[in-house]
């Protein structure tokens, strides 16, 4: 049997995230352009595979089999794979796992992973109404579960009661991530600073969340190249960044199947992390920089616990003590995260991957010194599924 190939992320780019006067195809082309600037010399003909991540592409294009449309608009002619994936908020992170498998098996050599979402629809009511489709329609959605703040508000309530997490600790997540995103030209809230007083005085969205606890409603697109080690070497002079391990765990699609004892406990994330760490042959303490799914401030607090960066229940103190800042133990969401950059579902995982790629190549805007191992994480829907990808400057031996 042939030896397994090694998969690398070569580079990538995103369009400007925010409320965009553009279609999904416009934004994908902008992201492809940004990617071409990041990987000089890359040509459409170099690409043999396309994995396109989007949940709402059908609604936004009034088309169903959208991957060939994306291929046409981007000028590529995939010959190994051409497919759309929908895992909601983890779409392009899932696509990176699939691309890795295709490259390691030898089916593909150079895969374009791209993702997009247009969540600001022609009329505002539809943006909320459409979210009724992001859960199990016949059960949770029929209870009115649409946009996620009420559900994550209950997660925050559970964490505060069980572990003593405070509103100020949640605020430190938002303040830190807005600070990270300040110099990110593609962030929805780029150039916007946030103080803890601003945070505490913001209008209430739903208890205990104020406006800055929640990521915004965002349009955007992102694109990355995943390639075999040999092709990656031919494409770039930068240090190679390897995909070392992945994990994806889905335990339920409806609230009755919630796997934790309480909403504050996310055993499915813990398991996804353990699978990825094992494959990557590292432990949580080896992670130099992380991009976790801070859809809400409380999410990052639970995630640093379940991913093993601190003990369970100590996430609030961990973030508030500066351990997620650029000189802390595990710098987290160093480009601004979902809270400051925004969260166009299918585009987020690849956006995170671009940031980790830059960090491990030593060229990020908020650079972590000597970063060797990086991690990306997404949750999907109302915390139904967790996806983890671990990167390194050296391959797994």
């Amino acid at each position, binding site marked *: 049997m042939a030896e397994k190939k090694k998969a690398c992320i070569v580079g990538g780019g995103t369009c400007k995230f925010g409320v965009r006067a553009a279609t999904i195809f416009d934004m994908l082309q902008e992201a492809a352009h940004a990617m071409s600037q990041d990987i000089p010399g890359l040509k459409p003909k170099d690409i043999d595979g396309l994995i396109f991540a989007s949940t709402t592409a059908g609604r936004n294009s009034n088309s169903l089999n959208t991957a060939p449309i994306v291929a046409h608009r981007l000028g590529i002619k995939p010959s190994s794979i051409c497919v759309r994936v929908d895992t909601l908020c983890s779409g392009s992170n899932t696509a990176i796992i699939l691309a890795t498998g295709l490259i390691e098996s030898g089916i593909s050599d150079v895969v374009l992973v791209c993702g997009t979402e247009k969540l600001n629809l022609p009329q505002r*009511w539809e943006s*909320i*109404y*459409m*979210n*009724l*489709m992001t859960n*199990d*329609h*016949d*059960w*949770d*959605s*029929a*209870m*009115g*579960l*649409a*946009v996620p*703040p*009420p*559900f994550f*508000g*209950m997660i925050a*309530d*559970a964490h505060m009661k069980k572990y003593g997490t405070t509103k100020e600790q949640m605020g430190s997540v938002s303040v830190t991530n807005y600070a990270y995103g300040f110099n990110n030209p593609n962030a929805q809230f780029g150039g916007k600073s946030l103080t803890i007083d601003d945070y505490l005085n913001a209008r209430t969205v*739903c*208890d205990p969340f104020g406006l800055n606890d929640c990521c915004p409603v965002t349009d955007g697109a992102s694109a990355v190249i995943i390639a075999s080690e040999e092709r990656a070497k031919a494409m770039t002079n930068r240090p190679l960044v390897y995909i070392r391990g992945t994990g994806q765990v889905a335990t339920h699609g*409806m*609230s*009755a199947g*919630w796997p934790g004892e*309480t*909403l504050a406990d996310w055993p499915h994330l813990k398991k996804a992390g353990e699978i990825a760490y094992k494959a990557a042959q590292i432990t949580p303490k080896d992670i130099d920089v992380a991009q976790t799914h801070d859809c809400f401030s409380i999410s990052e607090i639970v995630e640093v616990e379940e991913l093993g960066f601190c003990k369970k229940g100590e996430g609030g103190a961990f973030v508030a003590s500066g351990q997620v800042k650029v000189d802390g133990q595990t710098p987290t969401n160093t480009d601004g995260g979902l809270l400051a950059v925004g969260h166009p579902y299918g585009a987020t995982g690849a956006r995170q991957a671009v940031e980790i790629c830059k960090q491990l190549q030593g060229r990020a805007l908020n650079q972590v010194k000597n970063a060797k191992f990086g991690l990306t994480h997404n949750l999907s829907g109302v915390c139904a599924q967790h996806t983890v990808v671990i990167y390194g400057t050296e391959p797994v031996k």
Partner: protein
Amino acid sequence: MAELKSAKIYGVPQLDGKYSVVLDMWPLEDPEQNRLYPFYDNMKQGRWTTTKCKKCGYISYPPVVACPNCWGDELEWIDLPKTAKVVSLTETMAGAPLGFDSPLIVAWLGFDKSHPLKHLFVRIINCQAGQLKPGDEVQFVTFEVPSIPIDVKKETKICDRVYYAFEPVKK
């Protein structure tokens, strides 16, 4: 920008009267569309039910056609106890999805150890904002939701529908 005029038809006029909405908010509940129709038939009698596997005894929720524990297809309908306690709740005062009135009150429920369910996300109705708090007892309640036309052979059948939520138990 052109001024809206009531005489002008917007959207997709060809669909007028054929589809009530693009996205139906409620399940298809009739035997012609859904093998779980007994759940909804039972609900019309005020019963909260689910399926139990005759082979392995596993009780699933939501109800199923094949047991998720053993994939057996011999199932029976059982009644679920209809009370629970509120663990946590949130009240959405504005911005509830179209079709849901504000305040939209939703809760995370916990059930007794004897109950087949451990927890469940539900909507709370017949309740004022600020009335309910964690620890309070709530009970299963049904209500009518919009009927839907479906084609059955050459006829169009109007399917009446119900759904459920929980409401405070009067002290």
